[in-house]
Each structure stands twice: as C-alpha cells, then as structure tokens.
C-alpha cells in the first residue's frame, strides 16, 4: 500500500498553475525526498495532501483513502512557515497541538516530557515560547509534529536553523520512525541530506514532476559520467572534446563527460600533457548535478 498517491493533480491560483498534472506515489515505510527550486509547487502539493488546499483536478489518496479531515489525523506536519503561540508555555503548546490531532491530553503531556528531555529542553517546559532561541523553537515545533506518532510525517526543511548536534538528533528520529514503519516525506533544498537519507525522490519544477523514483535507480540510469581527478601540472587536458563541463576544485577538478564519451581518452590526454595524476575516479552524478541538469538552475 502506498502512503501517498497523487494522480494527475492540478492546482492553479487565479489561472496561474502552481501544480500541474503531478503524479507521485510514496511507498509506506520509505523516506521520500521532495525536491525542487523555490516556487516549484512543493508547498502547494504538501498542502493538498494535508487537505488544506483542494486540488482543481486529479485525485489524492493517503493510505489508500481519499483525503479528508480524518486522514490528516494520521499525518505529522512541520511546515516551512514556522511559528508557535509566543506567549504560551512550551509544554502547553505541544499538548494543545497534539490534542487537536486527537491525542488525550494526559498522554500528550507524558510524551511531551519525554521528547523535551530527548532534545535537552526539559528545563524549558514551563517557559514561554518567546523566551526560547530560534533553534529551540524549531525543536519544539519538530516535537509537536511527531508527538502523536503519525504513520506519515511531512517535514518541510526540518534542518534549517539547527546546529549539527540537533540536526543529527532530528535525522536519527527520522530514521527511527522509518524503521518503525512510518513514512517520511522530506522537502528540502539540501541535496546532501536527501542523498544521505532518502530512499526515493521526487523532483518538481514549475509545477511539474520532472523526475521521480528510487534514488539509487535514478543515479544508475545516469551512468558513471562524472570524473574526479586530482593532479598537479598543466590542466589543458580539461579542454578535451569529451569533457562537457568542468568544476575546478582545490586539489584538481570534477569533469562531466559528454554522453558516449570514453573516459580513457581524457586520461590519455592528461598523461600526454604532463600532468601528475594522483587520483582518477569515475562516479555517478551527484543529486545536485541531476537537480541542476533537470531544472536548469540550482
């Protein structure tokens, strides 16, 4: 069963399409990376899954049921636009939001304390939200998204504003939830996070789904067309006709090869030019490269 499935979903505002003909399915128990440049339609898509917006066309199903007010009880949501009532106590806010999602208040309170301790916010439970730093508020918001143990969690830029230690904790929680059978949708610009964590991706650009599927399969389909070379000496070989583009790095360069090009020719040209090669490796393209190639911009 798919946790989320979209079929030809279209949504426009005042005639301007924000999402057009997007189809997508998210396997239960997987982590999906939802990628796309700013204004691509990610947030609109998420909002339709949450029944905040209603699609103009197409159908959306969550756990094989059409989207209703009930289906969203099973979703935890961390929106990109973050905010909590500034004058409420940290624990009260968490309990209030959990209660709105159907949890009993006593149970919500018990779990809120466990989570606050895990994120080292135990001493702050009775403080007002506005007394917390931005990063702390971020953690409180993350807690309120996962407190009711939803089978589906949608996180929009969950790492922004977090220091490495807390980012690691959030990452651990996400992996933990996946291992317990929950489905996680991670919407972000940060490719390295997606590359590290996601099982599958969906790339949206200008309202359209331009690439979707298993991350490993996608990368393999691009073949090993990226050369990582470390060298000293002349670099004229980088102008070889087989090279499509070059990204100079400190120790050498990363070169993208043209389709059907033979990397051996580049190696030969490098040796002949007198460069001292210390590393020559063929790699799959990075997600960043795929993103740029598909959208034409970073």
């Amino acid at each position, binding site marked *: 069963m798919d946790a989320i499935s979209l079929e030809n979903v279209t949504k426009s505002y005042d005639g301007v399409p924000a999402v057009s003909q997007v189809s997508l399915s998210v396997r239960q128990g997987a982590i999906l990376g939802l990628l796309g440049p700013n204004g691509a339609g990610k947030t609109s898509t998420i909002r339709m899954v949450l029944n*905040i917006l209603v699609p103009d066309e197409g159908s959306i199903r969550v756990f094989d049921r059409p989207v209703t007010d009930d289906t969203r009880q099973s979703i935890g949501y961390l929106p990109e636009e973050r905010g909590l009532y500034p004058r409420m106590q940290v624990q009260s806010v968490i309990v209030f939001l959990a209660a709105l999602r159907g949890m009993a208040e006593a149970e919500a309170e018990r779990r809120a304390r466990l989570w606050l301790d895990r994120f080292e916010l135990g001493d702050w439970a009775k403080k007002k939200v506005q007394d917390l730093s931005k990063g702390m508020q971020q953690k409180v918001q993350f807690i309120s998204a996962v407190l009711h143990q939803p089978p589906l969690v949608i996180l929009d830029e969950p790492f922004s504003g977090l220091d490495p230690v807390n980012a690691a904790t959030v990452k651990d929680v996400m992996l933990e939830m996946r291992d317990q059978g929950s489905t996680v949708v991670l919407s972000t610009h940060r490719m390295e996070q997606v590359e590290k964590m996601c099982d599958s991706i969906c790339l949206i650009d200008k309202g359209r789904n331009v690439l979707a599927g298993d991350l490993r399969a996608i990368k393999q389909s691009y073949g090993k067309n990226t050369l990582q070379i470390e060298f000293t000496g002349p670099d004229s070989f980088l102008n070889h006709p087989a090279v499509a583009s070059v990204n100079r790095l400190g120790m050498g360069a990363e070169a993208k090869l043209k389709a059907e090009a033979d990397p051996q020719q580049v190696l030969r040209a490098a040796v002949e030019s007198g460069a001292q090669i210390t590393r020559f490796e063929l790699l799959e393209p990075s997600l960043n490269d795929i993103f740029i190639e598909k959208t034409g911009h970073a």
Partner: protein
Amino acid sequence: MRKIWLIIKREYLTRVKTKAFVISTLIVPLLGIGTILLIAFLVSHTSPQNLHLVIVDEAGGLALPVKQNLEAALANGQRQFTVTDTIDRPPSPQAVEHDLRGRINAGTLGAYLMIPSDLTQSVELHTKNPGNFTLLEPLTTALNEAVIGARLSARGIHVDDVNEISRGVHLQVIKVSQSGESVEKGQTIAIAITLVVLLYMSLLMYGIITMRSVLEEKTTRTMEVLISSVRPFQLLTGKILGVAGAAFTQFLIWLLTLGLFASYGAVMAAMLNPNSSFPSMRVPVSLLVWVVCFFFGGYFLYSAMFAAVGAACSNEQDAHQLQWLAVTPLVFTMVIYGVVLNDPTSTAAVVLSEIPFFAPVLMPLRISLQMPPAPQIILSLLLLLGAIWATIWASAKIYRIGILMYGKRPTLPELVRWLRYS
C-alpha cells in the same frame, strides 16, 4: 466538536489569564465607582463659599432687604453670603469705597456691593475674584427681588400678593410602560445613551480583539500548523466563541458591579451627602435580557467581519487600513441613533432598527425608550441571525483563503473573488 472546544478553551484561557484582562476587569469598575464617589465626597465636603461682603446703598432703603435675601439659607442649610455691614446713604461714597477696597486687599473682606442711587445704572460688585460666576445668579436674584419689592410697595402692592398671582405650574413627565408608571427625571434618556455607548464600545473593542487574535496567528505563522489539523471554519468558530467567553466574563463582572452600584449607589451617595439627589435607576430585567441577546448577535456579526479582515491582512498596518469594512456600519449606527432617540416609533426608526448591521445597537435603544411590538423585535432578531449566518459563511471563505496568503493587502475586488473560490 472536540477541536472547536479545544480552541475555545485555549482562546479563553490565554485571554483571561493575561494581566491586562484582570486589570481592566477589576480596575475599570473600581475606577468608575471611585470617581463618582470622589466627586460626591468633594461636592459634599467642600465647604461652600461663604462670601463676606458689605452693602453700600447710595439712596438707602435697599440694603436691608438685599441683606435678608442674601442671608436666606440655601436648601442644604448652609449660607452662601454673610453681610458684615450695610452702609445707607454714605456721606462720602468715595471715602467709603476707598476704605472698603483697603479691607478687600488686606483680606479681611471678600467683596462689597455698590448700589447706585440711580437704578438705571449698574449695581457694582467689587471683588478680588471676579471669576466666580456661581455667585452672580443668587446676587442678581436677591437684588432684583429687593428692587421689585420696593417699587411694588411704592405703588401700594404687597410683594407676596404678586408672588401668589404670578406663580406658575410645574410640569412633570411620567413614563407609561407595561410595568406601570414612573416619574421621569431624565433617567430613560440616561439609560438609553449609556446603552448605546456601551454596546458600540464593546462591539468595536471585542471585534478588534478578534481581528488581532486572527492576525497574531498569521504574523507568528502559527496558522499553518493549526489548519493542518483543524478546518478553518472550526478555527474561526472556536476563536469567536473563545473571545466571546472572555468578553462575557468581563461584561458579567462589569454588569454586576454596575448593578450593585445602581442599587446601592443612592444609599452610598446619601451616606456621604444627605442632600444628594442621586436618582435611583431601575433597569428593567426584560431590557437586560434583550440587551444581552442583541449584544451577542452583534458580537457574532461584527467579530466575524473583523476576523475576515484579520485573515485577509498580514500585518497590523494593513489591518488598520482594511478594518473600515467592519467599522463603517458600526460608526454609521452612532451617526443615526439620534433618529431613534427622537422618535422611536417613526418609520425611519423602525426600518433602521430592523437592518441587521444597526439592530444590535438600535433595537435595544428602542426597547429602552419604548417597548416596540413583539413582532418587530422578533423580525429584527431573525434578520440578525440570517445576517450572522451569511457573514460567517463569507468570512469563513475569506478566512480560508486569506490565512495562507502573505504579502500585499488584498483589494476589495480580490476579496470578492475569494468568496467565489470553492
């Protein structure tokens, strides 16, 4: 229902628990009562001015009657004037006046009254403090009575006879209502105007509180988390009811203190000042019931409108500019309530009080002045209910779209377009 209840509870508690709420709830009536009591105290305990004066009468014969008139005690038993001396036919008026001016400057005398022999000329009051206008009227009366009395006697007519003949009658206004008759001393108008101001102020105040509360969720970006688990309609309803609960709590406390004060105010005023004429006001219970009905009707109507304004805007400045949408009909009520006050049975008054945007203020006003026929009240309530339904429907639509819109303030045509979105 549970979600609406949770929202009501949060909205109510966060409002009621604030210091501002507690302070305004307790301080406002205390301050009001305190001010009234302070005024009553000051009025009764400031010793009324007792002006010591000397009367100089050039022609003679008038000084004594004027002295008698001036020294007649006031209703409260206190005297306003003490005539220390009367000087009839002074041989040298200049010397006398010079001496009196010296005494006034030395502070041993308050004033002197100079009555000329030729009464076509002005009588002069010489005093250090010419700003005290309250003394002029009794002085003029005392002088006129003495002068007229003297002239009448000269023609052989007795003053008392003239007073007897020329005494007018007193007209008393008595209000007739279902519950009987009561003497009117202006308390009907006082109650009516208090009611209008109270309703207008509280509708405006709680409307703006609702608007701010919606705006707060937008500016703090709490909105998106909320509507990922509750429907905008639930959020709107919960918010309006929550603020209504807080409003009702405050209103109830104010009404109770007001009621206590109205019942015991006369007693308290009497304790401080036995001669106080504090009218004991009886506010009929039926009026209170209707006021509460129309207040809540008006509150739901206007707060739904204010909530929509809050939802359509992204910051306080924009909301201030757009809030005329909700404020205008309310302010217009204040412009036209005079029509109802003048003649509550006129066609204009009847029609205006049936229009839902004005009914919350104008119908209670009519009820307080003169009980309108029951069908008119019921029609007005039904129309109000219909308008509440339509406004909440429209507001929920604007709310649903607006709460996720950030950026520039929408124009009126844009708002109308939002209404048509599915």
